[in-house]
Every structure is written in C-alpha cells, then in structure tokens.
C-alpha cells in the first residue's frame, strides 16, 4: 500500500494539538497550501461525524476535501477518510491518521496518509485496460 508518513515535534501539549487538528476553528488556522483564504471549515469530530474543508489558492483555484471521522480518541489519535471533491487529480478515497504522543517538550505528531486498497484496485483495473488497449493497438499496427 502506498503511504506517506511525516513526523513533527510541536511545543504544545497533546490536547491543544488535538483540538487544532480536529475542530473547525483550529483547522481554519492552518489549512490551505498557500496564503490563500480558507473558505469553509466544518468539522464534527466524533466517530461517524464528517468534516468538509474548502480553500482558495493564490492562483484563484478552489479545492475542497471532505471525509468521515473513523476513530476519535482525544488527545491521542484521530483517523479519517479523505477525498477531494471532483477528485480529477486523485480520485477515490484515502485514509489519514494522526497520532499524538506526549514528549518532554510537548507533542510528537505522527501523520500517515495511505491509499486504500479499493483505490489500488481501481488503478490496477485501469492498468488492465491500458494493457488491453496497447495489445489492440499492436495488433492493428501489425495488420493482423
């Protein structure tokens, strides 16, 4: 499974980091990949609750992601599903997990974003199609 893991050490206690990660007010302060505004930040951080985030980038494009909270253990761990609206670049659902651990200077945050199996299944289907089309093309080219 393709997955990305990042670690940060933060000089703040786990409960503060956890609320910054999960509450709508917290998310609005750090979301969006550049200095463009966060347009929408909704979050219902309990199991089965949903979140929705929209930001505008400096180039004027707007992007929205949303998903569901799958596990919420304050202040230790939160797991959510993740999907881009429209999702042309990255269709399908993935999984985001954030684990927090108290350390002397504050909190160690371990972030993991993983592609899901059904996403890989879709990709492998696509590959299958590409292969078939390549074969068809090869057959046409050789005139058989």
């Amino acid at each position, binding site marked *: *499974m393709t997955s990305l893991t990042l670690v940060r050490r933060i000089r*703040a206690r786990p409960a503060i*980091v956890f609320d910054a990660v999960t509450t709508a007010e917290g998310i609005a302060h750090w979301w969006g990949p550049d200095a463009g505004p966060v347009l929408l930040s909704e979050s219902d951080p309990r199991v089965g609750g949903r979140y929705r985030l929209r930001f505008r980038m400096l180039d004027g494009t707007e992007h929205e992601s949303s998903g569901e909270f799958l596990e919420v253990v304050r202040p230790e761990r939160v797991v959510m599903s993740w999907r881009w609206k429209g999702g042309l670049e990255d269709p399908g659902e993935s999984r985001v997990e954030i684990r927090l651990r108290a350390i002397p200077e504050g909190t160690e945050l371990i972030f993991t974003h993983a592609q899901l199996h059904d996403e890989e*299944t879709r990709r*492998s289907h696509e590959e299958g199609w590409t292969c078939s089309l390549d074969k068809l093309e090869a057959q046409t080219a050789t005139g058989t």
Partner: protein
Amino acid sequence: MVNHHERLDRTFAALVDPTRRAILERLERKDSASISELAEPFAIKLPAVMKHLDVLDDAGLVTRSKSGRTVTVRLRPQPMREALAWLRRYERFWSGRLDMLAAYAESKEAEARRKGKKGR
C-alpha cells in the same frame, strides 16, 4: 485481488535493494539504457546486474528488449510513477500544512500559559 497484492509485494521486495533502486533512478533520468551502461557506475559484475534486472522485470518495473546483441532496458513507469507522483504531491502538501499546524498549536500553547499565569 490476490494477483494484484502479490504483484505489490514483488514491487516492494524489488525496491528494498539499494542497487536496484539506483538502477531505477538511472532509468528514470534516461529513456533507456543497455545493460553495460547500467552496470557502469556499480562495483559489481554484469551477471550480478542481470540478476537484479531479473528481479525488477519480475516485479514489472522494467522491460527488456533485445536487438541483435544489445539488450535495451526501459523503466516500466506505470506502477512506480503513480505511486511516486502520489507520494510527492502529498508530501509537499502535508509538509506545509503540518508546519502551519505546529505554529498555530504553539501559539495556542503560549496563549494558554499566559492565561494560566493571570488566573493564578
């Protein structure tokens, strides 16, 4: 999807070896290479390179085609590129987000401590 997962296992097993990763990196930069070109930077003999190429070929990461006496090796980009593109895109994205998150949480922590002192 047993086949698919077996294939992924093979892909990751192939990627564990640093020499094989270096071969893939070279192929990523060049369009194609002969086996002797690939062997050049490594302190290993041709047969060892051939063995590495067998593993990469089994994992579907390279293709080999023979023309006369020369075997041309090409990266089979589909499985690798998709995985790498996904990783690179999200690494950049999340790295920036987490820096912002850390800065915000640290400011909240400082604020909570100021309030705590006042309350005492």
